[in-house]
């Protein structure tokens, strides 16, 4: 029942956003992210970096004079930081609903995780054939952000309400957990940005224009490629290889 309501809500939102913007898919490309997903992603990213930079300003005294002017000075940074957090949580909650069924863990993901070393070292150039729309690394990242987000919200509320409401020790512990979440999420986001830009070229297009090349699809998400095109990713790759060779 509940999942039906979520699907209806997501479909409605996707349709509405598709009427605002649009996605052009050229020949040799596949449709990947609808407008709704892209808007959510970049709004989340905006709030994330606002919260991160204002948080860093309060967190590291060495950065206080560097980062607070960006937000209009120390007092305003302190006032705005929780609101950035609220913005992040609200928009990312929509993203959770939007992506929930794509992010569920499968046995294929466990296999992918065991294989991660070969992908990391570049030994294997192509993802395992059962890698779907999202690979296990992306799913892990998603759930890490969800978990860190829960910690951020709980500790953030305690810190926002302050020592008068929750007591000094609760607030003191919250600083620790809030920062622990920040440490985890900063590491996660570093890897995310690296892989989606220069680490695995072509990925960024999927989130900006909404379309990716077929070669990108059969390389990084073979099972998804097979699902949307009906063709075998390995054969498609070899065919493309032959085509390149014969054209030279």
């Amino acid at each position, binding site marked *: 029942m509940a999942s039906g309501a979520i699907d209806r809500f997501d479909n409605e939102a996707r349709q509405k956003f598709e009427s605002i913007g649009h996605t052009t898919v050229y020949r040799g490309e596949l449709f990947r992210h609808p407008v709704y997903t892209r808007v959510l992603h970049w709004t989340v990213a905006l709030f994330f970096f606002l919260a991160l930079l204002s948080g860093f300003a309060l967190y590291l005294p060495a950065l206080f004079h560097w980062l607070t002017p960006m937000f209009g000075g120390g007092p305003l940074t302190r006032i705005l930081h929780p609101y950035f957090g609220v913005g992040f949580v609200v928009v990312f909650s929509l993203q959770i609903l939007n992506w929930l069924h794509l992010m569920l863990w499968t046995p294929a993901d466990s296999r992918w995780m065991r294989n991660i070393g070969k992908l990391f070292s570049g030994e294997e150039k*192509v993802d395992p054939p059962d890698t779907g729309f999202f690979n296990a690394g992306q799913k892990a990242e998603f759930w890490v952000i969800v978990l860190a987000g829960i910690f951020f919200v709980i500790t953030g509320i305690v810190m926002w309400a302050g020592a008068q409401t929750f007591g000094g020790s609760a607030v003191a512990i919250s*600083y620790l957990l809030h920062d622990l979440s920040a440490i985890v999420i900063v590491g996660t986001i570093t890897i995310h940005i690296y892989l989606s830009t220069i*680490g695995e070229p072509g990925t960024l297009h999927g989130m900006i224009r909404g379309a990716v090349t077929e070669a990108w699809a059969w390389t990084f998400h073979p099972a998804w490629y097979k699902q949307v095109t009906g063709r075998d990713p390995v054969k498609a790759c070899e065919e493309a290889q032959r085509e390149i060779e014969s054209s030279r």
Partner: protein
Amino acid sequence: MADRKTLQANEISGHTGEGPGYGMQRNYEVCKLIDTTTCIGCKACEVACVEWNDMPFQPTTFDNTYQTMPKTHWNFWNLIKFNEHQNPDGTIQWLMRKDQCMHCSDPGCLAACPSDGAIVKYSNGIVDFNQENCIGCEYCVSGCPFDIPRFNPMTKKVYKCTLCSDRVGQGLEPACIKACPTGCLKFGSKEDMKFIANERATQLKENFGFQNAGVYDPSSVGGTHVIYVLHDATDPERYGGLPKNPTIPWSYTVWKWLFKPVLGTFAVFGFLGVLAHYVTVGPRAAQPEPPKAGPPLKDSLGNPSAGGPSAGGPSAGGPSAGGPSAGGSQNG
């Protein structure tokens, strides 16, 4: 204070000896001594504090005690706490303790504060808040072991007792000291005050039968610049929640000395890490990669590449011999 010190005449032409007023400047650690045994609860110090610091009227709560209000407030920094303590033998002690900032040598508020210049500890030991630099994060509130800093929701700043740093800077005693009619409040150098306090504690032990009388100057925060003489120094809690062993929360140590460097290091090394991966392993491009200028002549060990000898033609495949097809076959 700074002005007076820098404008202090050290030498004067045609003048023998030291300049007039030389050595008059207070540059030692100051201390307020509160003798709870001679406090009569007249609240003159409360009034003097409100008057000198020009505080607006603060509505109070009546809770069936003589105490002006339950806790200190952002505009009420000096509060005598009234406590009725029952001794084991059934007798009652009516305890009065002037509660205010303790001006710790190792201030928890200062350690917790992230804002440059919002909390200052002067060389004379006074811990002062500069509201113009305060960002209202209230870290100091949970960092204080004595529950002293108070947040003003209107100005979004935190306030507390300044030990009248403005008066002390001009060579005067704090306002509360001036107002005290019994001499229970004293002000001077830390050394002198400790001496007087110990003398008084000895007197209480020898002449008045307070066997546990002593001085409250907790070393767990490096000593304080407000010290108490107590009838029973073994149980300061009975004086309206004076902590026996005040400490800065342990989490602050972890937070300041472990987490803060860790996150900074983590952010830098995370960035360097992905950069190292990009430089050493390199990006993972969509397959098949478009052929480069030609097949590699040597592999990373300097041996002639497998594709090398036959590499007269550019048909030998991708950047590493058989790369894409090898990947493909593993895939199948």
